[in-house]
């Protein structure tokens, strides 16, 4: 029986389907959707349960929601991206998959698309809840909210690509998951704050660029700030330690995120294709 292997795009679709099956059977997809719904429910229910009601300003309500989008994206990257490649090595499943007539880059891209679709589902659900709630409570949907959704999708793609790079490099699934979560949730944000306090514009940081997702609703969008990233605003005054805060701009943030996406995804492919089992 001599059959020719399907085209790369057909094989990518196959890898994608079986990867989605993994998320479904492993309850990962269900888990992230539950977390998404739980965050949204807390945001909606807590003000009412505490008897404080929703803010009167139509801008404040969604901006509170948007503060948690980046956490959701980092969780998605941890759930779907952090072990996607490293597990093939650590759990030895690569011994069955790699001797098949399929290019490694197609395996990686198929897995990437599956994790992007799963993450997109969670992010879209979250934004759908915000948009429906905004409409129900205030009778309007801000244009910036829709723009924030598109920016969140680009940020998600870049964080996932970075997670795939870590997964291609790391030796173990646990280490990869821990590093993915803490890198985007703690380490890079801390570096952003430190650079800000040292009066250095962290325009090149992907987490700083991701800040545009929520700041688009709350911060003035002035072009041409002090650095290439965006505008500067004095802050920290509330605690008596004023320090400059560089607010990312939409365009520069997009460029930074797209660059991170392209560079880290290509690097992930490069490493994965050369990694030995």
């Amino acid at each position: 029986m001599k059959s020719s292997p399907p085209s790369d795009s057909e094989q990518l679709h196959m890898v994608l389907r079986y990867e989605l099956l993994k998320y479904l059977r492993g309850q990962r997809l269900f888990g992230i959707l539950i977390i998404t719904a739980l965050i949204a429910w807390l945001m909606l229910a807590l003000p009412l349960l505490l008897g404080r009601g929703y803010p009167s300003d139509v801008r404040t309500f969604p901006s509170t929601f948007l503060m948690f989008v980046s956490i959701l994206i980092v969780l998605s990257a941890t759930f779907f991206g952090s072990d996607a490649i490293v597990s093939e090595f650590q759990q030895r499943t690569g011994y069955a998959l790699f001797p098949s007539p399929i290019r490694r880059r197609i395996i990686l891209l198929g897995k990437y698309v599956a994790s992007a679709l799963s993450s997109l589902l969670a992010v879209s659900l979250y934004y759908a809840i915000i948009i429906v709630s905004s409409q129900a409570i205030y009778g309007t949907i801000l244009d910036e909210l829709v723009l924030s959704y598109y920016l969140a999708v680009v940020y998600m793609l870049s964080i996932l690509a970075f997670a795939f790079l870590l997964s291609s490099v790391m030796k173990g699934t646990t280490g990869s998951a821990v590093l993915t979560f803490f890198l985007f949730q703690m380490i890079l944000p801390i570096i952003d704050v430190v650079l800000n306090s040292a009066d250095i514009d962290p325009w090149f940081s992907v987490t700083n660029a991701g800040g545009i997702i929520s700041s688009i609703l709350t911060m003035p969008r002035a072009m041409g700030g002090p650095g290439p990233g965006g505008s500067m605003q004095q802050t920290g005054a509330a605690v008596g330690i004023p320090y400059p805060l560089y607010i990312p701009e939409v365009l520069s943030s997009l460029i930074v995120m797209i660059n991170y996406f392209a560079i880290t995804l290509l690097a992930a492919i490069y490493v994965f294709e050369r990694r030995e089992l």
Partner: protein
Amino acid sequence: MYNSFVALDNLNLKVEGGVCLGFLGPNGAGKTTTIKILTTLIKPTSGKAYLNGIDVTSDPKAALSDVGAVVETPEFYPYLTPNEMLSYQGELRGMSSNEISERSKKVLYEVKLTEWADKSIGSFSRGMKQRMALAQALLHDPAILILDEPTSGLDPRGMHEVREIIKTLKEKGKTVFMSSHLLSEVQEVCDTVALLDKGRLIVCDKIEKLSKVSPVKKIEVRALVALTDSQLDHICRFTGVRSVKQTSSQVLLIEFEGDEGSMAELHNSLLGIGLKMTSFKPTGSDLEGMYLEIIAESVR
């Protein structure tokens, strides 16, 4: 090459179609490295490897399209069943759903996993995973099979069944490239042997030819009653006897050099000295003598 360690040293080995080749060598000889290069799990620092005349490094997709491989004991996605795993593999190889369905049934029957076809692989034992590995290697009925220790992890019955499968493949004219530590297994199923040591190819030839390299055989003799010193003395002086080792009062291990006719004479001589033999059995394979002899020479 791993850092400064040379895993394979100028290895030049060509396997003709339809040959069942046993790939032998001590631990660290480079057998698994060779198999991993052929199956694209690692890339050589220099040199080329071809399958069906196609370079595995430059065009792995085409090179592996008509190849089935079992490398070490692979793991499978625990959330899939054997049927689903074979379906995945079949789709990646461009098989139609009908072909996948028919072949899956056949190969799962061959490896005795039919009743587990729809159970999650996550619950499988090591031996069952090894059978599963063989099933996915056979799924597309490939012209070339690369098997790294194919009976590893199997019980004696499983080992026998796998050997029978390999013999059938050989009869069908498939090319089998098989590494194994079990010399008797290689002797039973393969027709050609390649011996590797320290990354170098020491010898590659037909088993019949190589067996003649070492004419020394080990024969285990069991007697009904304990052997006397006089009988032992006689045995040591028989033609062809190199050494005699008494492993218990009634059991002897004789190292003997000679052909089948000389062995028959030895048998008669033992009876001639009044030994009440209950068994006269050559032990170890012919290949074992050759292997030890050649490896010993290689060390020197």
